């Protein structure tokens, strides 16, 4: 499962920061997840809880910040909403769109103590 590897990536980042910043407990984790990132938020929640068990972030609250997708429509020459990778341009109905936002998979903030 893809979200399992990603949750492992989140744990690595948390543990690196735990070592650098010398904290022993994480109570909340904020993740930015883009609409085009291919990450399923519910699967991520499930894997997050499983992966954090027995670590510094056991029982931490997971807050997911959704980032909407958008892209540059080459035909219209402007940024348009792109809810999915295969969405058509809402203006010209074309598919010549380069995604510019919504690919995020990022650990944004931690609440530690």
């Amino acid at each position, binding site marked *: 499962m893809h979200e399992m590897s990603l949750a492992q990536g989140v744990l690595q980042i948390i*543990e690196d920061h735990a070592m650098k910043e010398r904290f022993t407990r994480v109570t909340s984790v904020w993740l930015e997840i883009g609409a085009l990132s291919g990450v399923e938020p519910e699967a991520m929640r499930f894997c997050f809880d499983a992966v954090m068990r027995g670590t510094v972030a056991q029982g931490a609250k997971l807050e997911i910040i959704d980032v909407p997708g958008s892209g540059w429509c080459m035909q219209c020459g402007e940024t348009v909403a792109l809810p999915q990778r295969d969405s058509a341009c809402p203006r010209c109905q074309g598919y010549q769109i380069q995604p510019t936002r919504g690919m995020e998979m990022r650990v944004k*903030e931690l609440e530690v103590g």
Partner: protein
Amino acid sequence: MCTDCGCGAGEAKIEGDGHAPSHRHADGTVHSHAHAHDEHEHAHAHLGASAVGTDMPGTLARRMLRVEEDILSKNNAYADANRRLWADRGIFAVNLVSSPGAGKTTLLVRSIEKLKGRLPLAVIEGDQQTSNDAERIRATGAAAIQINTVTGCHLDAHMVGHAFERMHVPDGALLFIENVGNLVCPAEFDLGEAHKVVILSVAEGEDKPLKYANMFAAADVMVLAKIDLLPYVQFDVGKCVEYARRVNPKIEVLQLSSTSGAGMDGWLDWLDRNASAAGASC
């Protein structure tokens, strides 16, 4: 799984692993590494016992910590290291991805037969289990090493870096990396390759580019394979290409059959052209 040294899937085994060193943490967990630590130069951040599993309530107040770090940043750092190393040595690396059974290994075997003697060739094979694919490649005379990801569903840049170190690949080589058959996870994991090539066989659905959009968005080339089967299957090539361009307007499309040889020249030309541009040569 190994969170100590950044292995994405700590159970992964690379052919030739002499032993699996293990160690015990302060909290009592014992864990093994799939690789020998003296054989590589990656920087490994080992966590001290104080960082994990130690409870010191009340010593620090709760506070917010700004992180702003990509979840895949570790993998991406290993991928960048691979990419720099390969660029310095004129090695042209291609990451082949597809669903299981699309014909990656057969395409590789046929490609190696045609390219043998023209430039040095090497293959890193990824599968959950068995070294069958590496053996098929070695039967062609090309150097190959197998990575078994065991439960892992993709190759990551760290394991590929280790496998590469073991292979003694000559400068100027063409390096094929055959990923685990899976159209989901390998899309996210950069291995340091010059190009990701997605192979879709016409025995599959023509709407796969829409179903697995991230993979087709991440690839530079889509190879439509097994085109000798087109008379026997319902597969609309035009629609498939249209779907692929919907999720990736820049994707290049090649059509071929490893069995009949149709379209192989186009694929070999693409490899030749891009390998020369990368500095790979005899």
